[in-house]
């Protein structure tokens, strides 16, 4: 289509007009307004300025500014004080994907804070940043700070925040915002950089938030946020940090004070209720303990073992709270239990009821009518209504609000006081039977792992056994997946506990954060990495290589979102039209054609990588080569092709 001739411009004419427009844009607005107040605006293709006009504009542009009214530098910006405040909270790291709304804080952390305590970590996506912080907490036991901006960065971060909420992780979030319209740059600082109330976007997932309007307010809220995040039950907090407050000079530093942080001691259960729980447990013939997110540290694990041994009671769940090879770990069952003790158990209804996912859904209780259920949980002390992470309501006979780890010493003492010689003999007999059953379970697991041993794709059981055989003699730590009954989990730090990424796509970043916390201890970190999860925010791998976080990724690459494959098959079979579904390749769930080269992806980000490996006989030599690289401080990835389950 021919263009109208009036739109035609030659290059010389275009540049001439653009130059004039540029010169006009450089003029001081006040001068222009004064000079042309009675005249219509000059057209973009105006004639060149007269010598007088040019001289006038040059004088206006180069005249000295009033230093007091228009300072061009600042010696004591508000963000320096903010960094001073945050340094008192003992953060090792702060992580972000950069954003101009917190440019003031970013510069202060680097130059004023010296990029130490906290050290700034570079991340390529906000979701990954929050999840790295979530994973770090799971091992370090203290929060990592994460900074982003409203609204765009915060929107990216939401799934990680949901993970922190679900896993009760005290991730410390800072969200920059430019509240004052006068302080915003045109365009950029309005739509993508400013909100009225940024925390509103994620408030349902936060334990607490604030938007300080002054530096003193920031200091107090920063300390309060940390304190509340770390109070049981823990959870993520967020401070909205104003852009102008970061960049403006501190009016009077002598008037600012940083409050002292005093963490709140966790609450223990009511003593009378604990005594009643002890009475029920000691009298029980077949007690069963469900351990959810009980232990915060090695002491929590030691206490749970002491309770189990005191009662000779089996403990299920909570792989992190109980050494998995302990003879009381994993035994017992609900149907035969007469007293059930649930400790910070998120999914108690699911534990105590049988649910069947058939066309007519339903659940039936597994608990015998005469059995008693005791709950000791801090989760009743902090709830949110919008996100339905509480499962169905489970009836219990005795509900004790309190932190389990803090309550355990009192419960153990109360039990010990009630144990008579007769009960002790009965406990010992029960313990022997449970120990025998536990030994048999381990042997069964060994036999189960032998089935499909030489199959290709590799079975998950063989993959796990091969990795265990390589790491068992080292100071290893699992940063996600793969650990089973054949491994020896003999310390709190060996596994990860109840850390949550908010769904598929979070666990790889969580693993990187956990490995970062393990780094200073020199532990060999292993992550069993599903392919579907890695495809969400795989650029987090670069954060691991960039910051020299040594770890081994062993892929569980089944080339599908296989859980959804099974769900589709279930739907098709119910509707009696599933005959050829699997053979057709299940559109929407398969990750084939082309197959994804994860080794090449990892190498592109600086990791050592091998694969795809589909012959189980190739596993061990590849694992030995990869572990050698990790022990030298590198990130290594083996793309192992596995069976789905």
């Amino acid at each position, binding site marked *: 289509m021919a263009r109208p001739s009036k739109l035609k411009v030659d290059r010389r004419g275009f540049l001439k007009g653009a130059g004039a427009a540029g010169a006009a844009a450089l003029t001081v607005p006040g001068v222009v307004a004064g000079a042309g107040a009675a005249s219509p605006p000059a057209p973009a293709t105006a004639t060149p300025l007269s010598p007088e006009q040019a001289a006038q504009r040059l004088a206006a542009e180069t005249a000295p500014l009033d230093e007091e009214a228009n300072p061009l530098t600042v010696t004591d910006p508000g963000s320096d004080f903010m960094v001073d405040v945050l340094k008192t909270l003992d953060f090792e790291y702060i992580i972000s994907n950069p954003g101009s709304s917190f440019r003031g804080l970013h510069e202060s952390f680097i130059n004023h804070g010296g990029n130490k305590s906290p050290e700034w970590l570079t991340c390529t996506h906000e979701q990954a940043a929050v999840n790295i912080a979530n994973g770090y907490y799971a091992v370090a036991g203290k929060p990592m700070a994460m900074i982003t901006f409203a609204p765009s960065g915060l929107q990216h971060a939401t799934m990680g925040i949901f993970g922190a909420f679900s896993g009760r992780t005290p991730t410390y979030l800072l969200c920059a915002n430019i509240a004052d319209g006068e302080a915003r740059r045109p365009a950029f600082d309005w739509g993508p950089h400013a909100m009225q109330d940024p925390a509103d976007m994620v408030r349902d997932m936060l334990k607490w938030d604030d938007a300080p309007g002054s530096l003193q307010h920031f200091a107090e809220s920063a300390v309060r946020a940390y304190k509340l995040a770390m109070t049981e039950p823990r959870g993520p907090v967020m401070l909205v940090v104003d852009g102008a407050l970061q960049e403006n000079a501190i009016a009077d530093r002598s008037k600012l004070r940083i409050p002292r942080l005093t963490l709140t001691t966790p609450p223990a259960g009511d003593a009378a209720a604990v005594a009643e729980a002890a009475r029920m447990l000691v009298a029980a013939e077949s007690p069963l303990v469900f351990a959810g997110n009980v232990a915060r540290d090695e002491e929590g694990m030691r206490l749970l073992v002491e309770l189990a041994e005191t009662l000779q009671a089996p403990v299920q769940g909570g792989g992190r709270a109980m050494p998995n090879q302990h003879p009381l770990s994993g035994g017992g069952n609900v149907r035969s239990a007469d007293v059930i003790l649930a400790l910070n158990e998120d999914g108690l209804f699911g534990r105590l009821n049988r649910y069947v996912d058939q066309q007519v859904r339903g659940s039936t209780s597994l608990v015998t009518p005469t059995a008693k259920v005791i709950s000791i949980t801090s989760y009743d002390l902090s709830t949110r209504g919008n996100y339905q992470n509480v499962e169905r309501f489970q009836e219990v006979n005795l509900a004790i609000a309190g932190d389990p780890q803090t309550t355990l010493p009192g419960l153990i003492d109360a039990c010990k006081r009630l144990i008579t010689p007769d009960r002790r003999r009965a406990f010992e007999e029960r313990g022997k039977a449970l120990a025998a059953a536990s030994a048999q379970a381990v042997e069964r697991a060994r036999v189960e*792992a032998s089935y*499909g041993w030489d199959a290709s794709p590799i079975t998950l059981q063989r993959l796990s056994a*091969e990795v265990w055989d390589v790491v068992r003699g080292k100071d290893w730590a699992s940063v996600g997946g793969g650990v089973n009954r054949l491994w020896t989990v003999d310390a709190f730090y060996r596994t990860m506990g109840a850390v949550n990424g908010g769904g598929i796509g979070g666990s790889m970043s969580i693993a990187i954060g956990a490995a970062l916390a393990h780094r200073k201890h020199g532990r060999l970190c292993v992550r069993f990495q599903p392919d579907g999860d890695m495809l969400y925010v795989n650029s987090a791998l670069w954060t691991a290589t960039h910051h020299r976080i040594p770890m081994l990724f062993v892929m569980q690459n089944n080339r599908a979102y296989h859980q959804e494959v099974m769900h589709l*098959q279930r739907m098709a079979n119910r509707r009696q039209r599933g005959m050829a579904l*699997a053979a057709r390749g299940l559109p929407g769930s398969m990750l084939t054609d082309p197959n994804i080269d994860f080794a090449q992806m990892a190498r592109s980000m600086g990791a050592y990588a091998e694969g795809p490996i589909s012959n189980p006989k190739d596993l061990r030599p590849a694992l030995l080569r990869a572990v050698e690289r990790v022990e030298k401080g590198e990130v290594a990835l083996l793309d192992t092709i596995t*069976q789905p389950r």
Partner: protein
Amino acid sequence: MSQRMAAWLVIAAALAVGEGLATAKQQVTAQQPPAAPAGNAEKGKTLFVERACWQCHGLAAQGGGAAGARLAGRVAPWPAFSRYVRRPTEEMIPYTVKVLPDQDLADIYTWLRSIPPPPAVATIPQLAPRR
């Protein structure tokens, strides 16, 4: 171990025990359970994949943890096996005759019973008891 996994193992154990009992009874009584229709193991292996059994039970029928019990080495007698496939009482995906005709199921059954035993645990160093 989750309750769901425990339930699966109970089923698997019951089926395995049932198989053992059936074998014993075959030797001493005239009342034998109905035999499985004749099947083609090679075709059954293909159908095990095409009809998606492997998705939960694994390509070698080695079991998929909580998703599906091991079938290799412990297939129930045909009556219990076929009844459960048609009308499972737990989590298993139901397979009607329309989705999986009797002959196809018999082929799969024949293949499952033909799977050779795995190597002995004692011969696998990676599965040696913890040191």
